[in-house]
């Protein structure tokens, strides 16, 4: 029998708590019974519709699937430009963030990277950062 209520005090993880976990070296993703991955905050798997999602350790290394060197950013990233923006494939789940520690001229699709949490140059806001594995 399914339970359709979603009490406010249950264990749903916020996006900031997920960043905390990455920062602590305990990165994870949400896994559906079918094996699909997604990131918090989620009640429903975006790929299968499953609601019984479990926390699984995020693989330590991902592969840059696509990237761009951003020369014109939004105001809140004005001091960060130019920066490398990338989508990184960690197997069951993909993450979007900024690549640091790599020359923008040298970055390539297929590069292996790990994930950390750092702050923007422009503000103190945290963001997902990839660094060479």
């Amino acid at each position, binding site marked *: 029998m399914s339970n359709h209520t979603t009490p406010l005090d249950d264990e749903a993880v916020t996006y900031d708590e997920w960043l905390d976990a990455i920062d602590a070296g305990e990165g994870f993703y949400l896994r559906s019974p079918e094996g699909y991955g997604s990131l918090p905050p989620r009640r429903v798997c975006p790929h299968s519709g499953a609601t019984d999602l479990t926390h699984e350790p995020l693989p330590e290394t991902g592969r840059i*699937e696509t990237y761009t060197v951003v020369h014109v950013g939004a105001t809140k990233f004005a001091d960060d430009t130019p920066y490398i923006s990338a989508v990184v494939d960690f197997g069951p789940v*993909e993450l*979007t963030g900024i690549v640091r520690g790599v020359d923008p001229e040298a970055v390539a699709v297929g590069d292996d990277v790990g994930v950390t949490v750092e702050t923007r140059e422009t503000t103190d806001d945290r963001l997902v950062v990839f660094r060479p594995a």
Partner: protein
Amino acid sequence: MTSVRVAGVGLTPFGAHDDRAGRELFASAALAAFEDAGVDRAAVDQLTYGNFMGALAEEQGHQAPLMAEAAGLHCPATRYEEACASAGVAIREAVRTVRSGEADVVLAGGMERMTTLDTGRVTAALAIAADELYEVRAGVTFPSAYALMARAYFERFGGDREDLAHIAVKNHANAVDNEFAQYQTEISLEQALDSPPIATPLHLYDACPITDGASAVLLVSEAYAKDNGIEAPVSITGSGQGGDHLALQDRHEMAQTPATEDAATEAYDEAGITAADVDFAEVHDCFTIAEVLAIEGLGLFESGEGIAAAREGRTTADGETPINLSGGLKAKGHPVGATGGSQIAEITRLLRGDHPNSDAVEDGTVGVAHNAGGTVASAVVHVLEADQ
């Protein structure tokens, strides 16, 4: 199913309108549509209106009743927001309302003021169409999201910046004689290639400009047109909409746009056509790569073939399937919430024969409009057909 006729269309010139208020821009487009249609404003049953960033650009929410008032209408009015596809969904809602028999006369369209914001703020405003948690906080902008898709396309299918530059050159050439276009100027391949990078591999001339403007389309039922002697030789015969994950990281594929494929399938099925029947199209080329993704998603070109279509002359004005004869978003301009209505207006003019580029599709009877939201997490496709 009740047929939906395009009774009249109206546009403002696209560009920088300085201190003109959005309401006055929309009124201008609406009055032009009424004049084109020869229909009295009092006949309008409903206004469906597209707008994306009015709360930021003019600090004006609740725009639909404001726009109805500005256009001299006394009818229910609703704003539709689907990022850059806002007017597309407004048109679609109007089509469905007329078809259902709930209304005989619906004004649809949209308006956007963008030049009120400086480059950093307009970049931030456009970025709100992306996923705020997963993308915007990680530095993704509207151009950079399409740059991520462009790189993914190159990796999968091949192609390079020069292929994309040919699209920019083509669309600028198409806009030269369009009195509503923001850039009525040709550009060279070298100019496009030498322009500064925005988000590699996309450079300045791969991107649509920042634009103010409004569009209005007056849709009427077949019965209303007949009973009132309205000359309306163009009909909207198919309407489709598709959706996808908002964030690129959750897509199964970044080099294709399933939302467009789904919208096209629905619209073609309704119209009883296939992609092979399409004579020309106005597609959502907010960036040059977006035109590639659109013409492939619409089934006009096979996956991997769209990238070379402009370079090979297949989509130019004299090509087999002209794309963006208006100049497209790239050269005509992209006032976000007005664009979907503008595409319908341009196709109507092209089919009627009163567009500066109508000669390019002299024998054409089927035009397709493709309007996309964000990185094509939303897509709306309409089929327009001219009476034979």
